[in-house]
């Protein structure tokens, strides 16, 4: 009973005081809700960014990957010699090694003729370095001259490709070079590219006349089944030149994500936005708690005169902070859920509302409210019981 009373009584009084003034409560909830939505959106966009940044490597099928040391990310690669990749075939654990060519180029919308940049992947159609059934199925068509596959999940600005293809309108230009779209696949957009196109290595050279087959952007290595990936990686590391990076699949994903998180200013912008949401919410909640204590100063002083201890009021303030956090979080979560759906349907960004994110944001909001409480309790000193007479 006493343990319970220790927190229950001040919490109950905090609750009664909160619900007594409804209009102020609504204002307070709006403040927390605002911070909550801000943080949800920042985190959502950030995760979406990282998820989509890694959407290209996610479908890659290989055990080890080579990239130039200076390649910051797949969307802005530095080329290296194909012969460097082929040296790995000397290792007995290596089964196959395939070059991957990458380039950004404008694609002309078949309907509107407007050009927009997308990512072009060039590779040997028989290599199966992408884990996508559509590409496996279309590998014969891809071997023909001037054929490409188009990513159905590209942004809609490239045109309604599926219905255009069904209507037989499959000719367009990439980099001002005429190509036939012979099929669709599903990969997804990233912050670097609004769409994707896959083609054979030979067609890639036709689209990018200044590139040549011996300068590759990435090497995809497949090992014999059961080969120890990290051990082979270490062996290759000692054999290959300094200027190439060797990644396992997971390392490649992490490398791509880290680029967006750290190197690109975008990661910083979202981090900054999150912190700003926290600070703004903190100021709002602090302001609310502070004026609340000021308004209840006489009441608190009366209770102190009756024998209530300082700790009681500290618990009361923190209980208020907790209630505000919960009351603001619930509508904030619902609103954010709606905005996430809006972003997914309107902006084609993957924005899943994960449990981990819900918990993260709640803890974030809670820490914000607790911090506001910590700042506000100094105001309790103003409640002096001797002034009550």
């Amino acid at each position: 009973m006493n343990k319970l009373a220790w927190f229950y009584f001040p919490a109950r009084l905090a609750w009664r005081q909160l619900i007594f003034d409804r209009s102020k409560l609504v204002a307070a909830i709006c403040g927390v809700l605002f911070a909550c939505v801000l943080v949800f959106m920042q985190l959502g966009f950030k995760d979406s960014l990282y998820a989509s940044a890694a959407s290209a490597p996610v479908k890659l099928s290989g055990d080890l990957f080579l990239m130039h040391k200076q390649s910051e990310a797949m969307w802005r690669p530095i080329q290296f010699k194909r012969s460097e990749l082929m040296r790995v075939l000397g290792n007995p654990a290596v089964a196959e090694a395939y070059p991957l060519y990458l380039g950004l180029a404008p694609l002309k919308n078949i309907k509107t003729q407007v050009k927009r940049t997308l990512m072009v992947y060039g590779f040997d159609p028989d290599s199966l370095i992408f884990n996508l059934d559509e590409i496996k199925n279309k590998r014969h068509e891809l071997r023909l001259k001037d054929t490409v596959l188009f990513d159905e999940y590209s942004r809609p600005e490239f045109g309604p490709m599926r219905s255009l293809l069904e209507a037989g309108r499959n000719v367009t230009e990439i980099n001002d070079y005429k190509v036939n779209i012979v099929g669709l696949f599903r990969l997804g957009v990233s912050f670097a590219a609004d769409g994707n196109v896959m083609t054979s290595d030979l067609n890639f050279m036709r689209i990018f006349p200044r590139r040549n087959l011996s300068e590759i952007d990435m090497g995809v290595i497949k090992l014999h089944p059961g080969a120890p990936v990290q051990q082979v990686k270490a062996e290759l590391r000692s054999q290959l030149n300094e200027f190439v990076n060797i990644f396992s699949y997971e390392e490649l994903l992490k490398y791509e994500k880290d680029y967006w998180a750290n190197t690109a200013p975008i990661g910083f912008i979202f981090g900054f936005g999150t912190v700003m949401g926290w600070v703004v919410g903190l100021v709002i909640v602090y302001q609310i708690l502070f004026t609340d204590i000021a308004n209840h100063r006489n009441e608190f002083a009366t209770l102190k005169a009756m024998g209530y201890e300082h700790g009681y009021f500290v618990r009361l303030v923190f209980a208020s902070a907790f209630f505000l956090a919960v009351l603001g979080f619930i509508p904030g979560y619902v609103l954010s859920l709606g905005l996430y759906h809006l972003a997914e349907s309107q902006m084609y960004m993957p924005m899943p509302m994960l449990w981990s994110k819900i918990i993260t944001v709640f803890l974030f909001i809670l820490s914000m409210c607790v911090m506001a409480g910590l700042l506000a309790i100094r105001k309790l000193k103003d409640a002096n019981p001797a002034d009550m007479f």
Partner: protein
Amino acid sequence: MPAVIDVEHLDFSFGSGALTQPVLKDITLSIRKGEIVLITGPSGSGKTTFLTIIGGLRQAFHGSVKVLDQQLINSSEQVKVKARQQIGYIFQQHNLLKSLSALQNVSMTLEMGNALTEQQRRDRSAEALIAVGLGDRLDYKPGQLSGGQLQRVSIARALVGQPKIILADEPTASLDKQSGYEAVSLLKRLAKESQTAILLVTHDYRILDIADRVVELEDGVIKSV
């Protein structure tokens, strides 16, 4: 009868150094169990200051102030808090919590660390409110009660914990003549029933007749007992 309040040679001043302003000078006063003592005196004579020291709300450093056998001179915060819990207060303003109903306000006295159940607290608070004639106003908020009713709620709040001492500072100041007198007579009746000592500051000469004893304070000195 044993003394519940025993003050000897109490000196108190506000400020320090050259700005020191003596307010209470060599006060000696003893109040027995169940005794009703009124303090009167001109404005600024130190009546409120005296009350706050006895109530453990203000720290004094010279002399002796024993409240229920606890020495309050140079005492720790804990000792003062303990003293406060054993005393019932009635303020000039009612000082009720405006977000709580009359019943909840009275219950606040009982919520301090004793082992009653919620139901027992409700029952005792309701009894106290019935005793002050507010049995039909249990769930009213302060905003819905008149001044006299509010002061009666605060009397119930002071009495419900069955304190041995009640301190009241001009409890009738915000009331008209009639309800002021009624409130104080009620206080007297209930206090006599439970043998509670009352120390009451007032300017209101109409209520002097409720007292067992009247003490007059002038310039920090007790003039007549």
